């Protein structure tokens, strides 16, 4: 018989008079992994930030172990046993693993002044060992892999005796084997009666690891059910409302395979990453690059975009060689990069300033940037891509992940690209925006643009691609027509080499 460790009831929260949570509720049982789903802006993060003391609720009750609680600051929530594993890790890269785990609550000597270093390292070691991780407590965090950093983050939570752990998109930047390790750990935490709130957009993961699911929409919890009792369609409907359609179905498209290729990659070599890769893409074709994280996918497209030095081979657009980033952009290549926050956008700047950034020359008349034409172009993209925002002058950090990604796309659509490359375009993008992006990419390809897509989500890759290249260890080991791929599992198998 499981008991509720956490009950949140009728939570209201508004920012600047704008309600974000409206009578939202959430319950968490002892030792369960509970998925919290919903589009960006549905209120998941706000609800969890109230739980972890980052925000204060306007109304409603929060009970932990049946007792009413109220957290004025994150450290109060921490003391009550709540910890949040943020999407962006909160570790300090220059400190060691042990120093990070015990940051702020270091074991002290009797005089309460000096830190007991050996004790700290020993205890860090014990915690990491407990879940079977061979991470050296003396290693610097900056030298660890993303997966290992996450383990340290979880160890940090456990060192504070956390009983509720909130994981926000924990697998977003993990490799396949790291995901497995994480799931093993989640299961182990459950046996220790620790409860996990698992925020993710990835359906497959949720069905694999979570016991129950709560779906939110417009600041309300729409559905809470056992994972085994709810279908994916029901879930999507709960998150998107009744007018939604599941768009992640493959649509066969006609591509003229006799046309001359617009992009030709020949014997491409990037030492240490890419080994003798050749392929061609025709106008209107959507080519998917399938491979594991670290297989060289990103390096291939960065080489095409001219932003990564190549050590051999050639890249040609319409037969003309591309030797630099400038060549590539002028020849009509656009790249929606892997990390939109660090590579795609200037977050503090307006939508308009971001859209015109690769296109400054086009918006310049007589030495000056034409703000009016830039605003008009931005308005066009806002309407075309259905970007939810207040207007072209809104700063992009205020927008949700999906809307931000649409702006990165708009930057390159403005140039009417011949070759559009999308590297992990839907990371951190909710299901509604995801299906819109997929539809939009099809539309772009239909208009004659050659599209290259990288995605770790094979469901999406299979939905969108006409053809797939299997990348393994820097080489192309397969070139398959989409209609010959039977299932997602077959693709998972193929990319293992």
């Amino acid at each position, binding site marked *: 018989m499981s008991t509720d460790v956490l009950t949140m009831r009728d939570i209201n929260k508004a920012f*600047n*008079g*704008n309600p*974000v949570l409206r009578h939202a509720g959430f319950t968490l049982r002892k030792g369960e992994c509970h998925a919290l789903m919903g589009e960006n*802006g549905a209120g998941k993060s706000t609800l969890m930030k109230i739980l972890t003391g980052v925000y204060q609720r306007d109304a409603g009750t929060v009970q932990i172990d049946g007792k009413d609680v109220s957290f004025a600051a994150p450290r109060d929530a921490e003391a009550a046993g709540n910890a949040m594993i943020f999407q962006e890790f909160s570790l300090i890269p220059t400190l060691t693993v042990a120093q990070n785990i015990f940051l702020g609550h270091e074991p002290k000597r009797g005089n309460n002044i000096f830190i007991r270093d050996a004790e700290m390292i020993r205890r860090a070691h014990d915690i990491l060992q407990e879940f079977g991780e061979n991470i050296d407590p003396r290693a610097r965090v900056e030298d660890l892999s993303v997966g290992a950093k996450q383990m340290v983050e979880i160890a940090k939570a456990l060192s504070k005796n956390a009983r509720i752990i909130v994981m926000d998109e924990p697998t977003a930047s993990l490799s396949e084997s790291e995901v497995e390790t994480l799931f093993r750990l989640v299961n182990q935490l459950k046996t220790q009666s620790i409860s996990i709130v698992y925020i993710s957009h990835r359906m497959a993961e949720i069905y694999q690891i979570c016991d129950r699911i709560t779906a939110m929409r*417009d600041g309300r919890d729409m559905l809470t059910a056992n994972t085994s009792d709810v279908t994916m369609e029901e879930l999507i409907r709960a998150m998107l409302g009744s007018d939604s359609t599941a768009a992640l179905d493959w649509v066969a498209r006609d591509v003229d395979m006799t046309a001359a290729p617009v992009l030709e990659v020949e014997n491409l070599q990037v030492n240490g990453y890419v080994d003798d890769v050749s392929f061609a893409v025709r106008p209107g074709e959507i080519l998917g690059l399938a491979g594991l994280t670290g297989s060289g996918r990103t390096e291939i497209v960065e080489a095409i*975009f001219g*932003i990564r030095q190549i050590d051999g081979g050639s890249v040609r657009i319409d037969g003309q060689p591309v030797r630099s*980033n*400038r060549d590539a*952009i002028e020849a009509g290549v656009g*790249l929606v*990069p892997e990390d939109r926050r*660090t*590579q*795609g*956008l*200037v*977050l*503090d*700047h307006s939508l308009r*300033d971001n859209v*015109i*950034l*690769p296109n*400054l*020359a086009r*918006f*310049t008349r007589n*030495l*000056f*940037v034409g703000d009016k034409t830039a605003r008009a172009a931005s308005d066009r993209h*806002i*309407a075309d891509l259905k970007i*939810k*925002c*207040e*207007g072209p002058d809104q700063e992009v*950090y205020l927008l949700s992940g999906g809307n931000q990604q649409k702006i990165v796309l708009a*930057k390159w659509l403005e140039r009417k690209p011949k070759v559009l490359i999308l590297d992990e375009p839907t990371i951190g993008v909710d299901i509604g925006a995801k299906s819109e992006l997929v539809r939009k990419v099809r539309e772009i390809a239909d208009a004659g643009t050659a599209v290259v897509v990288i995605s770790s989500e094979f469901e999406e890759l299979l939905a969108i691609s006409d053809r797939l290249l299997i990348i393994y260890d820097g080489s192309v080991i397969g070139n398959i027509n989409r209609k010959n791929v039977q299932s997602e599992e077959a693709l998972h198998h193929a990319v293992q080499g």
Partner: protein
Amino acid sequence: MQSKADPMPQERSFNLGRINWRENIVYICFAGVLLFFAVTIGDKGFLTVSNLFNIARTTAMIAVISIAMTFIISSGELDLSVGSTAALAALVSALAIQAGYGFLGGLIAGLLCGVAVGLVNGFFVTALSIPSFLVTLGMMQLVRGIDMRITYTNPVPFRNATFDMVFGPGTIGVVPTLFLWAVAVAILGHVVLRYTPFGRQVLATGGNREAARYSGINTKRVKIICFLITGVGAALAGMLWTGMMGTARYNFGEGAELAAIAAVILGGTSLFGGKGTIIGTFVGALLIGTINNGLIIMGLDVSEQMMVAGAIIVLAVAFGKKPSR
């Protein structure tokens, strides 16, 4: 929830109010300081036209350096070598005129000093990826050493009618020439930063260098040009100092780098790059000049002036701070 059809006027006006307050702190401060001095020392000569023009004249050099500094700070870098560079340009241009190369020869020689220092700074920062703080800290010392060596700390007096007319302490109409230089540089800087593609590239580079690079912007080139701008701006300021003093000295511009950074940050430019305003900087420089002038008239000694001016800067920046997200 936030759609184009539903612009949420209530929230927008709320935001606007908040943004105005913090982004315009420099204007509010400037108005407040002027008012304060007008009331307290208005009858001691603060409000006379000659004193106000005196403020404008003595502020011109810092204003020019600050405007140039706005570019480098907006691009996400820093230049501490401006003060030393100003003195170098002052000395070299004076020596060139003394040696008979005439006004134009002196002007070009002075500006080339700025170009040279800017190129060295730009090279070490971009090609070798050394933080600009360290590179320009070193250059500040190195160039000041050169300043002291070239004339063994002796001043370089010279007479040149054209130089006096262009950079001298005189007026055009009633307005001090030096101040007109500052205004001209401010207008040029404002137009370039706000309305040209280069200005956008500077702000994008400072806002997010990687994103700028992935948008096809040559961020190294942008930074080198920004260092050239601070170098040349400092050189111009050096010649303005020479013009005001009638002689070139090795110690021109001591502490100018810090005054300029204060003016830039007071004006509302982000110390971390990506947001910059030339008009704010210009008023920031005037604010600092006005405080210094007013405190002198109030009869404070140098130590007291420094304490008050420092406190005002800290408070103004604190009030103008962007609320954390």
